[in-house]
């Protein structure tokens, strides 16, 4: 990977390589190599679970020019989803994907990423599976109580939003104040509204990377909401997000055959 990154930088194929490096206390952290020397610091192993796709749209990174991005499955799916939503186009980036067997594939086109994704079955972690099953088994009241209890802890820092590759809006609904759609303060109602709004906006778009939950400083498993909604969208419309550009936008497309039993 380091050699490929260096070559890409040297030949001017890319200007920056978005990847991981050793961090503090045994963690890895997002890392940005802008020259061959910096590329020496890149690492990749099973600690690299973070989705780096959200850096693609960040000004601080895009100012350097075309990126190559060290991509786990989450990141690849993030890239495809961003392409579906017209945030990235073919040729904007090169993805360096490394599989569990430590083999690297260099994807220069979105099609190559799609071809690769077609060979994998998207999975969520066992812990998340158990939690979603538990939530499914709850009655409506129990479920509401569960979320209210969790959301009591929410301090509305929006770390979940910032960490999400698909929360790229330059103005989020929570920041619109004329009219004020969502109460700004971290009150019970405000928190619930904020999270329902976010989950709805991500339904069928969320690529289930779990990053929002990981980012939450108070440990709310907030990723379960958009994840669950994406599962629902898959069940109803059959599309899984972040796999292929043909998947479209289930929740933003009307088709005459759509079930609409939840409206009116």
């Amino acid at each position, binding site marked *: 990977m380091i050699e490929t990154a260096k070559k890409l930088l040297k030949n001017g194929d890319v200007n920056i390589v978005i990847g991981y490096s050793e961090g503090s206390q045994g963690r890895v952290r997002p890392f940005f190599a802008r020259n061959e020397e910096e590329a020496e610091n890149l690492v990749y192993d099973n600690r690299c679970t973070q989705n780096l796709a959200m850096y693609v749209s960040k000004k601080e990174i895009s100012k350097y020019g075309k990126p190559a991005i060290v991509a786990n499955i989450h990141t690849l799916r993030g890239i495809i989803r961003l392409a579906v939503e017209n945030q990235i186009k073919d040729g904007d980036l090169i993805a360096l994907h490394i599989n569990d067997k430590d083999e690297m594939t260099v994807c220069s086109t979105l099609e190559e990423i799609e071809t690769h994704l077609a060979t994998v079955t998207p999975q969520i972690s066992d812990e998340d599976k158990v939690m979603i099953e538990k939530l499914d088994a709850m009655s409506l009241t129990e479920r509401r109580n569960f979320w209210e209890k969790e959301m009591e802890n929410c301090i509305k820092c929006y770390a979940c939003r910032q960490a999400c590759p698909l929360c790229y809006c330059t103005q989020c609904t929570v920041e619109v104040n004329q009219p004020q759609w969502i109460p700004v303060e971290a009150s019970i109602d405000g928190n619930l509204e904020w999270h329902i709004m976010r989950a709805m906006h991500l339904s069928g778009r969320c690529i289930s990377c779990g990053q929002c939950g990981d980012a939450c400083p*108070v440990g709310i498993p907030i990723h379960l909401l958009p994840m669950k909604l994406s599962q629902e969208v898959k069940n109803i419309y059959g599309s899984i997000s972040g796999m292929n550009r043909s998947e479209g936008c289930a929740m933003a497309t009307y088709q005459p055959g759509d079930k609409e039993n939840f409206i009116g």
Partner: protein
Amino acid sequence: MNTQIKILKSANYIKLLQKLFDHKKNIYGPVRQGKRIGYQKINSANELATDFIIPDMSAKSFVFPCIEKLFSFTKDKENVEIQNLNLDNIPEKIIVGIRPCDALGMKSLKAIFGRDPADSIFQTRLERTTFIGYACNQADDYCFCTSINGGPGNTEGSDILLTKTDSGDYIAEIITPKGESIVASAPELFEDGSGLDKQKYLADVPKRFDDSNLENKMKAAFDTNVFDEYAIRCIGCAACAYVCPTCACFDIQDRTKGSKGERIRTWDSCGLKLFTLHTSGHNPRETQGVRWRQRLMHKFSYMPERLEVRGCVGCGRCSRRCPVDMNIAESINIITDENII
């Protein structure tokens, strides 16, 4: 007042809490909720978490809540009538299990909210809160209180500081009159402990950087690219500020319904893009690097200069909780490294 040293047997500590419950005191302490350690109102000593390094959130919300009402207002045609908050309604609280860093953080908050004009709501909350701290007998690699004039047994900000000894009993330092009044509610539970030394029970927290002349080193770094370079991975999520015991940025909002409403104060952060965005669209702190610089400069240069206290107590929470491993001690280390400046 001079600190008095007493012994509080572990069984007596439970009795003390029981007595305080009996007196209908509002007691809050660190409680384990799944993976989380959070401050919660408790009704029995059993609820308290025992084995933890530091609660996930700091204790700042007791004096500076995440959301608080400042006043209410009613509009009647052209007249607006303001109803001030009745400070008498702010309840007394006892917080047990606060760590020395969090207690020291109160000093920074006091300096910020005490600046003319002093914030009476904050001051009343602080006056009505008693802190029974726990000295740290364990620390992790993120803790750096000792690099910043604090320490695992620092008493500043606590009213009573309890240090757990090997037998499970506590060395109790009674630091303030508020602490004394707790002792006075059950004097029979405390035994004389003069001469006892808590030092050997404290966690070992190595120094992570040299803080001498830090203020000037920060200033010298202002125009260099160290901040941009360090913050290149920062995603501007503000988790760092929200978990910090001393960060005090806030936003003011009106919550209205018809002709009535209330003005509220909520936490905010200088790390957020929106914090400095002007209506014109111009943002004087355009990039995350500049926002990171503001965060550090404010804590280690502006606050010492204007308020004579630093805005960081080395609790390490921001680094622990940062989703992209921004480590404040490391960042300061880079800045204080002569070669870089």
